[in-house]
């Protein structure tokens, strides 16, 4: 299906996730092409709901966050704050009639943390169940890279 190929995920991730340095990121981008846009951030506590909203508004069918496991944030509470902020973004998109599942947070596992590539694949599998976003028209989809 043409629409499935054009589906775009904006994925924000903490740079402390294992195997998430530049070469691994570039390999992922090459593997998924334009359907995956990666945004490394120093800590998911840096994430604001606005980041997710702008991604959904401008190019993404879904916007997700990959955070460190509970209790394992280098800055103590960054991942906990991120979860609340994802909730705020979810409330807002839900209020305008967009599915709440278009935003979400996946926390890495404590003890045996997964590398970025595995987590990214899990998120891609999860959002594949969603229809293309009704916010984005065809012109927006063909724009390619986010601004």
């Amino acid at each position, binding site marked *: 299906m043409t629409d499935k190929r054009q589906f775009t995920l904006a994925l924000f991730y903490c740079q402390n996730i294992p195997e998430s340095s530049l070469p691994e990121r570039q390999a992922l981008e090459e593997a998924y092409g334009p359907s995956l846009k990666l945004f490394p951030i120093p800590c998911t506590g840096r994430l604001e709901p606005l980041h997710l909203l702008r991604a959904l*508004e401008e190019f993404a069918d879904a916007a997700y966050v990959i955070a460190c496991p509970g209790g394992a944030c280098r800055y103590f509470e960054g991942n906990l704050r991120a979860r609340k902020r994802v909730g705020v973004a979810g409330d807002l998109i839900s209020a305008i009639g967009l599915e709440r599942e278009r935003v979400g947070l996946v926390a890495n596992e404590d003890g045996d943390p997964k590398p970025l590539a595995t987590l990214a694949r899990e998120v891609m599998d999860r959002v594949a169940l969603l229809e293309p976003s009704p916010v984005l028209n065809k012109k927006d989809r063909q724009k390619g890279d986010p601004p």
Partner: protein
Amino acid sequence: MITAEQKPIEEIREMIGPYKRVLVVGCGSCVAECAAGGEKETGMLASALRMAAKMEGREVLIEEITLDRQCVKDFVIQLDEVIDQYDAVLSLGCGAGVQAVAEMYPELPIIPALNTEFLGETRDQGLWVENCVGCGDCMLYFFGGICPLARCSKQLLNGPCGGSMDGRCEINPDLPCAWQLIIDRLERFDALDRLERIYPPKAWSKKQGRGPRKIIREDQQRVEV
């Protein structure tokens, strides 16, 4: 500071519905502190409104700007350069901010995006409480810094009602009894004798009943040359 909360987005969408070019104006002062109308909230609301319009297939221009203060005309005047491009303003200022913008641009509809609530203290992160009713005749000296008008559910001025239990309010047990707080505090300062006075009913004429209040400070006003 002045506290506020954002109106439901459905209500906002209904109000801006007739307009094609909307400027969403945030305020970087009180409503930014209470996370209702600062730069972040303004960006989020504008983004959500744009997405909602796209989903409906409506062609609208929704842009945003945040002023340092919306209730001071010296800051509002920054809108002069851009205001002509829009046919409505959606203000995330408090009621004073909305009206200051409306007065500056009488030809434009200025739509409130917030419900202004109360004069609040930031008690903790994400927690604002009403400690002052702005009565115009502060009596905090007599009550040890605890205002019975704002913090006693019955607004009693001459001692507790007799219904408080274990220092909690009988109307709302989640609240401490304001009179318990007043007595504890005055006792600490050895000032319980302040409660021997009889306080007459509050003269509310200093707060309301004569139209909008006004403060004039000649020493702060412009000097005519």
